[in-house]
C-alpha cells in the first residue's frame, strides 16, 4: 500500500527519471550483481529501513562498503524518527535521512524536493 501510494505520488509530481522498485531487502541487493554485469547505475536510491527479509540498514551497509557503488547517493526515506536509526544510518554513510511524513500532501512535497535536489542540483563523481 505504501509502495502504491509512493508511486502515485511520483506519478502526480511527474518525476522525469525512470523508477525501478525492489520490494524487499533481498531484491534490493539482487541489483548489485546486475550493476556489476554492466547495467546502468541508478542516479539515486531511495531506501526504507523497515524492509522484509533483509533490513534496510543492512542494504545500506552493503552498498556503502562496495568499492564502486558507494558513491551512489542513498536517501533513507522512512517513518522512523528514532535517534538510533538516524545515527546508525549516518555511521554507515547515508547521504540523507528523511522522515516519511504521514500526510500524503506533505509526502508529495518531499518527493518533489528529493528529485530536485539529488537528481538535478547534486553532482556525484563519474
Amino acid at each position, binding site marked *: 500500500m*505504501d509502495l502504491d501510494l509512493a508511486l502515485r505520488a511520483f506519478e502526480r509530481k511527474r518525476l522525469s527519471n525512470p523508477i525501478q522498485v525492489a520490494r524487499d531487502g533481498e531484491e534490493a541487493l539482487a541489483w548489485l550483481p546486475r550493476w556489476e554485469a554492466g547495467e546502468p547505475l541508478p542516479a539515486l536510491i531511495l531506501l526504507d529501513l523497515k524492509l522484509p527479509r533483509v533490513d534496510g540498514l543492512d542494504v545500506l551497509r552493503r552498498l556503502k562498503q562496495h568499492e564502486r557503488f558507494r558513491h551512489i547517493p542513498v536517501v533513507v526515506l522512512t517513518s522512523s*524518527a528514532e535517534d*538510533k536509526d538516524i545515527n546508525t544510518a549516518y555511521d554507515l554513510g547515508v547521504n540523507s535521512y528523511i522522515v516519511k511524513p*504521514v500526510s500524503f*500532501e506533505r509526502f508529495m512535497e518531499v518527493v518533489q524536493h528529493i528529485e530536485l535536489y539529488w537528481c538535478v542540483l547534486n553532482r556525484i563523481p563519474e
Partner: protein
Amino acid sequence: MTSPPMQALKIAGIYALCSLLWIVFSDRLLPELQTEKGLVFVSLTALLIFFLVHAALRAREKLEQHLNQINRIINRSPVITIAWDNAPGWPVRFVNDTIRQWGHEPRELLEGRLHFADLIHPDDLERVNQEVYRHFSEGPDDYTQEYRIRTASGAWIWVNDRTWLERDAAGKVSGIFGILQDVSDTRAALMRLAESQNRLETLINTIPDLVWMKDPDGLYLSVNRRFESFFGAPRERILGRTDYDFVNQELADFFREHDRKAMEAGGPCINEEWLTFADTGYRGLFETIKTPVRDEQGRLMGVLGISRDITQLREAQEELRSLNIQLEHRVRERTAELEALNRELESFSYSVSHDLKAPLRSIDGYSQLLQEDYKDRLEGDGLLFLANIRKGVGQMQELIEDLLAYSRMERRQLENTPLSLPEVVEQVLEYEAQALGQAGLTVETRVPPLIIRADRDGLGLVLRNLIENAIKFSPGAQPPLIHIEARAENGRVLLSVRDHGIGFDMKYHDRIFKIFQRLHRAEDYPGTGIGLALAAKAMQRMGGSIRAESSPGAGATFYLELPA
C-alpha cells in the same frame, strides 16, 4: 678508759696513800727533811694529783668531743634514733633532734610529756606491742617492723623501725633502741606499683585473647588465664616449660618456627592458625601477632605473643563475601532483565513508529486521492465523511508523534550541561513566534542571566509544551499576555510560565501531569493529553520538577524547578 667512780677512787686512793705515808713518816722524816723538804713532798704529791686529775679531765673532754661528733652525725642523718625504757607507754630515754622532722620537740619526749607509744597509730599499736613482747620472750633481739607514726600536725607517716633490745645481766629487757626511717614515699610507690600490676594482670587475664611471653629458648615466662585454658594447665605448670611439653611435635615446631621468624624480623609477625583448646575442646581460627621484646640495653628478652579468635569474624567475612557475590549476581540478572525490557520497549516504539504510521499514511493518501479525483461524484454527507476521515487521521498522527516523543523522553540519554536560561527561552519563543502571533498573544519575559544545568532539547521541549499549552487555553484572554519569569532560589532555579487563560480547578492538579488525562473535551480544546505528561517526564529526568497553580477563570501558572 676507766669509769668515773673508779677514776675518782683511784685519785682518792693515791691521795689517801700519800696522806697515810705522811702521817706515818712525817714525825720521823720532818726533823731530817726539814721544812723545805716537806714543801717538796707536798709539791710532789700535788703534782701527782694534778697529773691524775688532768688525765681524767682530758679523757672526759675527749669523750665529750666524741659524743658531740656522734650526736652531730646522728642529728644530720634522715633517720630517727630513739631509745626507750621497758615500761608502760614506752617512756623515751633518748631521741635525736631529727624527730623534729615530724614536728615533735625532743624535750617533750625526754621529759616524759609524750611517750613513744603515744606516737604510734592506734590501729598499729597492738600489733607493734605483740611483736615487741614476742621478741622479748623469744628473740631475736634484732628485728624490723613497719607501722604508722603521728606527726605534730596530725598526719600519719609510715616508718620502718630497726629495733634491738638491751637486756640486763638477768636477761630481762631494760631498754629498747630503734632506728626509724620514713618509708611513706617508698610504701606509696610500692602500693601504686602493686595496684598498677594488679590492674594490668586483671586486664591481661580478662581479655579474651591468648597472651604469653617466652624467652628466646622458648621457655614460657608468663601466660594469661585464657592461655592456661588453651594448654589446659595452671600457669605454675606452664612457666619454665616449652610448647613441646603441651602440644604435639608438629604444632610445637610450627609455633617455634614463627617465634624465630619474629625474632629474626625484629618486629611484629602475624600468622593465622587453627587452635584446639585442651580444656574445652573448642577449635577456632586465631590470628597471632608475635613481637620480639628487648630490654633497655637492647638484649633480646623473648617473644611476646597475642592470639585473637577470628573464627566468627572470618565466618562473617565469608558470609559477607558470598552475599556480595550473590548480590552482584542478582544485580547482573536484574540489569539484564531491565536491559531486555528496555530493548522490548524500544522495539515496541519502533514498531509503533513504523507499523502504526503505515496504515495511517494509506488512509491519508487514499482519502486525499479520493477527495481530489472523485470529488465530483460525492455530495453532502459523503464529502463530510471524507473530511472527518482526514481529520481523524490528523489526530491519530498527532497522538502517535506525542506518544513517540514521550517514549523517547523516557529512554534517551540526557545531557547535563550548563545552559544560559535567557538563551534557551529566546530560542523557544522564536520557534513559537508564529503560533503566538496567530493567537494574538504577547510574551513578557523577565529572565535574569542565570546558568542552569539541564538537557537543552529536554528543556526546550518542556518550554514549548508550556507555551503551546498557554496558547491553547488563552483564547480571548485579557490581557492577551503570557509571562515568563525566572529567579534563583537555594541553589535552584525557578522558572514560571503564566497565562490569563481559562485556568483549572486545583483538585485536578495531579491529573494534568498524567499521560492521556484530559480536563476538556477534544472538540473544545484539541490535544492528545500527552503534552504536560511529557513535560513532567522531561523535568523528572533532568532532576527537576514541575507544578502548577491555578483556579478556574484566573489563568494558570506553571513552575519549573531546576538545578542551577
